[in-house]
C-alpha cells in the first residue's frame, strides 16, 4: 500500500515543494541530412520501430528491415546520418549503428570499418565507474559495429583486416574479444590463425580460451543471498499493454 496519497494523477496540478528544480533545455533529434522528407520519415519510422515494445515489436522491426535493406540509397542515408551526429549523442549513434548492422548490407561496410578504426576520444567522465563513461559508450558502439563486420564476413565481404588490426592495436579487452569472436564466427581459417598468433604474442591467449555459453549455463545469483530480502506486499499487477 502507498505510504501516503502522493501518486501522480493524470491531469494533476503542479504544487510547490522542496527538492531540486529541473527544466528541459535543448531537444535533440536525429538530423535530416537527406533533403527528402519521405526518406527521412522512413528513417525515423524504422528507428522508432527498432526501440518499440509489445508482442509484435520484433516482427514489425524485421519487416521494416526487409523493406529497407533492398534499398542501397537508404543504407547510405543511415551511414551518412550516423556520421553527422555529435560525439556525445550516444543513444542516437547506437540506434543508427545497430540499424546499419541489422540491414546487413555490403554498402554498410565502409561506415562500420570507419567507426571501428576511429580513435576513441579520451574519457570525459570524472568518475567513469559511477557516471556515464564516455569510453565505455564509444567501445560499445565499436563492438556493435564489429558484430556488423562479422555478419558481413559471413556474407563474403572481407572485413578481416579491420578485425585483425583491432586485435593487434586496441587497448581495450572488449574490442579485442569482440574482434576475436567476430573472426571465429566469420569462419576464415587464415584470419583466425593470424588472430590466434597476435593474441598469443601479446599475452592475450586467455581471450582465445573464453567460452561463449548460454545464460542458463552461467553462474546465477546466489539464491541464499537473494533470499535475505525482506518480503513486501505484492500489489495487483496490471496486464502489459499488449495483453
Amino acid at each position, binding site marked *: 500500500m502507498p505510504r501516503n496519497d*502522493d501518486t501522480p494523477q493524470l491531469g494533476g496540478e503542479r504544487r510547490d515543494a522542496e527538492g*531540486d528544480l529541473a*527544466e528541459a533545455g535543448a531537444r535533440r533529434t536525429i538530423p535530416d541530412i537527406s533533403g527528402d522528407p519521405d526518406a527521412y520519415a522512413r528513417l525515423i519510422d524504422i528507428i522508432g520501430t527498432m526501440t518499440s515494445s509489445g508482442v509484435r515489436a520484433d516482427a514489425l*522491426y524485421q519487416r521494416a528491415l526487409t523493406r529497407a535493406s533492398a534499398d542501397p540509397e537508404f543504407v547510405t542515408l543511415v551511414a551518412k546520418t550516423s556520421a553527422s551526429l555529435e560525439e556525445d549523442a550516444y543513444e542516437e549513434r547506437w540506434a543508427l549503428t545497430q540499424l546499419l548492422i541489422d540491414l546487413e548490407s555490403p554498402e554498410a561496410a565502409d561506415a562500420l570499418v570507419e567507426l571501428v578504426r576511429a580513435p576513441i576520444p579520451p574519457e570525459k567522465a570524472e568518475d567513469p565507474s559511477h557516471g556515464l563513461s564516455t569510453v565505455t559508450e564509444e567501445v560499445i558502439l565499436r563492438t556493435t559495429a564489429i558484430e556488423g563486420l562479422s555478419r558481413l564476413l559471413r556474407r563474403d565481404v572481407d572485413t578481416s583486416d579491420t578485425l585483425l588490426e583491432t586485435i593487434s592495436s586496441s587497448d581495450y579487452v572488449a574490442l579485442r574479444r569482440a574482434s576475436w569472436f567476430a573472426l571465429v564466427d566469420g569462419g576464415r581459417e587464415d584470419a583466425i590463425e593470424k588472430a590466434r598468433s597476435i593474441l598469443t604474442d601479446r599475452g592475450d591467449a586467455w581471450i582465445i580460451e573464453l567460452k561463449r555459453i548460454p545464460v542458463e549455463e552461467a553462474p546465477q545469483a546466489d539464491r541464499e543471498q537473494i533470499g535475505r530480502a525482506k518480503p513486501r506486499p505484492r500489489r495487483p499487477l496490471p496486464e502489459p499493454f499488449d495483453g
Partner: protein
Amino acid sequence: MVHCTYTVPDKNASGDNFYGASICNQAYIDYFWGTYGFSGNKNYWDDGFGWDDACNTDQPLARAFNGCYALTYSASDYQNDSYSGACLNWARRYVREHIDDLRSKCGDGTAIASFSGGTVELYLGFFYSKHVPGRAETLLHESRHSAKSHNAKFPAGSTFGAGKNGADSSWGYNGAWMYGALYLWWYYAQGARTTSALRQAARQRANVVIDGAFATHPGFSI
C-alpha cells in the same frame, strides 16, 4: 534548491516515444509509484521532474516509468517473479524489495545513480543517457548495493578506468556488476515484448561489463 537543465535526446532512439505513448495509463502509474519506492517521495519528483505531468517523456518521471515498465514486463512469464527462476523474472522483485525510496535529483554530473540506506537517487544521466532497458538494469544494479559495495579495482584493459576503484572482485562475488550483467544477459537471451535490436544492445553492454568490471575476468562471454 539546485537548479538544472537537461537535454532530451531523440526519443525514437531511446525508446521513450513508443513506451511513453503506450503506458500513459493511471493503472501503470499507480503500480509503479506504489511498488518501486516512488511513494512518499513526491517532493523529489515535482518541480520539473514530472510529478505533475507523468506522461511527458521529456521529463524524468515518465522516463523512469518507462524503465520500470521494461523491468516489470520483459519476461514472457512476467507474473512469475520467483527467485528460483531467471534474473529477468526476479529483477523486478529484487528492486521492489530493496529500494525503500526512489528519488530524482539533478546530481553533480559525476554519477548516474547512487544507493544509500535503502534510498536510490537517480540523476540526470539516468534519464537522459540510457535507453529504456538500460534504466531497468541500472535500477537492479543500484538495488544490489543494498548488500554489496564494489570491492576491487578495474583490471587492465577495462573501459571503466584500469586501476581505479569501483569494480567487483569476481563474478562469484555476486555484486552489483554481476546482477546488472546477468539481467542484460537474460534480456538478450529471452527478453519479451522487445526487439532484436534492443536485445543486441543488452548483449553488447553486458559483454563490455563482463570484460571490464571484474578484477578477475569470469572466463566467459555472451
